[in-house]
């Protein structure tokens, strides 16, 4: 028994060796300039970021990332990441900046730092037409036989909890799986960001319906970086102010969000 105990202690001794390989906390932007590569975490969500048929990433946030890399004078490396683990991946240093339609919240802010908003998300309800045709929005939806689909970790969750406290909430990691569940008639509504409800209403040929033209809530969207790096934060904030003043941000937003042909 003593022999095994000694062996166990020997294994434990190996661990502190790796502690020295930890990164010391430099400014992320400085490191990016030094390496010449900006790693940006993105998550597919039409039309913010998506792959075209050739596997190339396109979208509003991809334009932002490309412009940011160009302005910093480095090459862009996009890191498509599953939505479910996107904040842990940022914290673990798998990429430098998260441009993934993240709405700041106080709870998230305790784990990562946010830039000033570069855009606003509008939360809208998309409904399964057949099941909801006799229901009035929003008063009839606060009922315990109503099933509401949400993307897990999305900013629509607090909205749903506040507006429909009695309804059953069902969470999906993926927008596509959530949509499929709704189109199969397994739920009543899917709360998601504009312009998805509008695109899906047009695409589904009457099966799905956007319930209201007034968005339920408007939420800011920001870049996220690891905590405590105020130099990089300042660079990003200033960059967002510059592209806003230039009108470039509004022009890109208009290109991706108001051009109906883009979504086909």
């Amino acid at each position: 028994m003593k022999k095994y105990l000694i062996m166990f202690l020997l294994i434990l001794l190996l661990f502190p060796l790796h502690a020295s390989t930890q990164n010391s906390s430099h400014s992320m932007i400085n490191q990016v300039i030094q390496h010449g590569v900006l790693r940006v975490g993105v998550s597919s969500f039409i039309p913010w970021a998506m792959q075209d048929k050739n596997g190339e990433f396109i979208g509003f946030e991809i334009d932002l990332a490309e412009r940011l890399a160009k302005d910093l004078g480095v090459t862009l490396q996009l890191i498509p990441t599953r939505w479910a683990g996107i904040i842990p991946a940022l914290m673990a240093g798998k990429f430098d900046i998260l441009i993934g339609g993240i709405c700041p919240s106080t709870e998230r802010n305790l784990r990562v730092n946010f830039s000033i908003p570069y855009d606003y998300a509008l939360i809208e309800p998309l409904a399964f037409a057949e099941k909801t045709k006799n229901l009035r929005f929003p008063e009839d939806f606060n009922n315990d036989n109503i099933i509401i689909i949400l993307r897990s970790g999305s900013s629509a969750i607090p909205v749903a909890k506040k507006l429909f406290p009695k309804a059953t909430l069902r969470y999906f990691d993926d927008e596509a799986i959530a949509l499929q569940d709704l189109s199969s008639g397994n739920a009543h509504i899917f709360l998601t960001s504009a312009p998805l409800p509008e695109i899906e209403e047009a695409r589904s040929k009457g099966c799905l319906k956007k319930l209201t033209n007034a968005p339920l809530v408007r939420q800011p969207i920001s870049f996220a970086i690891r905590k405590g790096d105020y130099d990089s934060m300042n660079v990003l904030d200033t960059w967002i102010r510059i592209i806003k003043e230039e009108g470039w941000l509004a022009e890109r937003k208009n290109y991706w969000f108001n051009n109906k042909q883009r979504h086909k």
Partner: protein
Amino acid sequence: MPIKNYSEKYRDWKPQTVFPQRLTIFDSIVLTAFTASILSLIWISYTYTGYQWNWDLLSSLIVTTHANGHYILGILLSGVIFTLKLSIWSLALALFLGGCIGSFSAHKKGPAALFVRFYINTIRNIPPLILLFFLYFFVGDMLSFENLAMKIYSLPLILQKVIALFFAPADQFDRMFTAVITLGIYEGAYITEIVRAGVETIPRSQWEASSAFGFPPLMKIRLIILPQALASIIPTLVSQSISTFKDSALAAFISLPELTFQSLEAMVISHMTFEVWIFTASVYLLLGLACSHIGKNILSHTYKWRAQR
């Protein structure tokens, strides 16, 4: 046991065929029921109005034409290639680990065997997805796998291309690395047990006889024990290899663009839920079938080779 008996036993060995010479009544009932259920499934799916089938769009996700005219890989086919690379590297690592640890830990007792038991019991009792998260978020962060990827950028361009072709491009390197290590040690634990059990089926007299002839330990295993053990190892090994191909789908959760991840992406852009997953399932099916075919060939070669001795 004299070796002569073995060669006689395996001389007339042939791979079993699925199709019998004559069909019994039971066979025909099963065949009819099977065909009927497949046909009705197809019929139901085509008369189901809640879903618009769109097979044409699927082909553009598999192979697509570039703006300048020549064909390029679509997002699904590039996923298939990633899955192949991931599975083959993981399988290679698992076979190496399992082969070495398994053959040397057979009939062993004491601390060395204790470590092997520790490895097998720990890895086999942790869900592979959790192991993957552990390595990706915790170990990968501590040992900074992503710095490894950064070093690739400083390599000459031709070397970067070779790494991208056979392993993964620099932007996917740390995830590919984590996934290969995870699947390698996970499947390796099972293969260790398969190899150890296979080696332990060889009677002790074979070990004793080879010791009596003065074989050193390595030659003893390589020349006497393993060739005999292979017959019982290979069939189980094939099914473990098929598992490796299937488990590679877990890498989607750390965003490695392999087949499952690319299928989820394809679902986002095309909304062809059914077509995409039917395609993905058939690819995994084909990979598994190919794997078992290769395994069967190796097995019959092993038998022929042994019968010649």
